[in-house]
């Protein structure tokens, strides 16, 4: 390829990115960009109306997504993407509201909001990039760090039990739950397409390499080494019991679609209940958003 031609090359998802914000801040070998590419692909394939998509992020490396996508987006405070998404969805039920954030944001500081949105079956979609640590601030222990892994606040290894996010999501009431790694990009895209069509609380966890912090501190090599780990240790088990999905340090990664059920959403429940109690006085709110 000639140099001139190379300069002509464009990023295939450029039309979905705010190019004035590029270059992005993600490190070489990081998986967030690949998950974002899958998301762009899913948006294209599912042919959703881009004017009806809103992307929300909290804080952290993945939190940057809301700033990079050329869609209506909100970069919220740390942990609050889910309640902001809830407010947005209820004020404008026509929107497909997507929270795209990291494990620290969603399961750590925002954990309470996450379980309550799932409990209500709030009709939002959550993409959680899980890189096993708080990467933006320098690789501290997170609620997802496997036991035995080193982190900057666990210099002799983490001894706390981590969350198994699919289990937490299902137990809290999610209607769609999947887990993949940054290696399973076609499957990530497919899950995202399904979740974009889903009415109800949907949750997709994508395990991704954090090369600069998690891998370096644990001497796990570079991004390719982590992809090899995903390749060797991941096992697709659709419909697996979410109680069996714990992740041990460099251990087996059970991936797949675990939950895909239909259940009335928060608005369905509100309309049904208040319609019943108040009768004609009640005006149905926010349905027909499919």
């Amino acid at each position: 390829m000639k140099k001139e031609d190379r300069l002509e090359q464009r990023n295939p998802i450029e039309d979905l990115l705010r190019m004035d914000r590029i270059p992005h801040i993600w490190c070489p070998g990081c998986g967030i960009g690949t998950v974002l590419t899958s998301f762009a692909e899913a948006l294209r394939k599912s042919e959703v109306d881009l004017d009806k998509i809103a992307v929300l992020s909290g804080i952290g490396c993945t939190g940057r997504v809301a700033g990079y996508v050329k869609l209506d987006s909100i970069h919220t405070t740390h942990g609050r993407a889910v309640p902001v998404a809830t407010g947005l969805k209820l004020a404008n039920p026509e929107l497909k509201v997507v929270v795209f954030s990291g494990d620290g944001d969603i399961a750590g500081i925002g954990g309470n909001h996450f379980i309550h949105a799932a409990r209500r079956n709030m009709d939002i979609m959550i993409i959680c990039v899980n890189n096993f640590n708080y990467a933006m601030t320098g690789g501290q222990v997170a609620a997802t760090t496997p036991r035995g892994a080193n982190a900057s606040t666990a210099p002799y290894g983490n001894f706390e039990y981590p969350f198994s996010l699919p289990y937490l999501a299902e137990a809290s009431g999610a209607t769609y739950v999947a887990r993949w790694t940054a290696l399973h990009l076609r499957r990530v895209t497919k899950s995202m397409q399904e979740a974009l069509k889903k009415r109800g609380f949907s949750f997709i966890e994508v395990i991704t390499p954090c090369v600069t912090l998690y891998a370096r501190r644990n001497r796990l090599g570079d991004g390719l080494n982590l992809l090899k780990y995903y390749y060797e240790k991941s096992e697709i088990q659709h419909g697996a019991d979410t109680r069996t999905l714990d992740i041990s340090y460099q251990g087996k990664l059970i991936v797949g679609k675990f939950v895909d059920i239909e259940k009335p959403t928060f608005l369905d429940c509100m309309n049904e209940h208040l319609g019943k109690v108040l009768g004609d006085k009640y005006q149905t709110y926010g349905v027909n958003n499919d």
Partner: protein
Amino acid sequence: MKKVMMGNHALSFGGMLGRAQVIAAYPITPQTQVVELLSEMCADKTLDATFIKVESEHSAMAASIGASLAGARTFTATSAQGLALMHELLHWASGGRNPVVMGNINRAMAPGWSIWSDQNDSLSQRDTGWIQFYCSNNQEVLDTVIQAFKVSEKLMIPSMVILDAFTLSHTYEVVDLPDQKKVDEFLPPFRPEIKLTPDDPHAFGGLTSPEHYFELRYKLQKDMEKAPALIEKTGKEYEKMFGRYLGQVEEYRCDDADFIFITSGTVGSTARVAIDELREEGVKVGNLRIKVFRPFPFEKVRNIIKKAKKVAVVDRNISYGHHGIFYQEVKSAMFGHHNSLPIFGFIAGLGGRDVTPSTFREILGHVQKKDKSEEEIIWIGVKK
């Protein structure tokens, strides 16, 4: 022992030498190195303390309060959004009289997202009943943490030790680490009169009727009023043992000054450089750096600036709908005492915009031009 360290590590070593027993913290830029080093010290037992890797700053302060109630010396650190998230529990720590000591790295509040320095985060917590120390170099950070434990535990009022993002938090300076034995002598173990123990049962945090609540607040204020003298006394005691004195304010070439800048944090050390240059040129300027913002050092401020012809308060903060916060406070301190002293209010360096010696030249230019301030806010370096 002398060591080269960043401001954040000066906080960690302060916590270590102060023998904090429980540390609960959540990571936030630009604070993380404070707790990373402390977590290492806790893990390898350099520091005999329990480190709690909490899930949010709200939990960090809650855990600190719990530990303090159990009678443990407690240290934590945060910044900006994290401090704001703690807000409810900041009131709880002071109202419940838990002498937690916390480092806060001054960082601008979002939105727009910023990780750079200004003081709106800590000044928003002005009325939570915490003692606030603003530091200007790394040695001062370390020395202040040790003294803050002593002052806080004596008064049973929590303290915040504050330093600017990056210009101090990430700047490496030589810091003299005092000898642990001498620190132990200066700062005996925390022995609260009342704590949560089965040996002597107490209930904390109960519903307080109008019959009693008012008096609790009266007592908090009365104890706060004891802080200025106690901070001076503790500073002198520390000076005797370690050779460094820290009081409520730092005065620099104010004695014969026609113009006095009032500053805080690292802006105060920049001011000193500007003053030396201006003095060479024959301009009589001085700097009063306010170190302790709560309780406000009324007497010190009044006595030092009353002799000046004009005063310029430099705020790296703003109270929207009012003025720079230090400016308000200085004016209120002078009102009824020295009403004719012209005080000018400047706002500079919000969101990490640099404040340099030339900033002070610009400020001086404004002050020299007018007999008294015609506007309450003079913006320095803003692109209008």
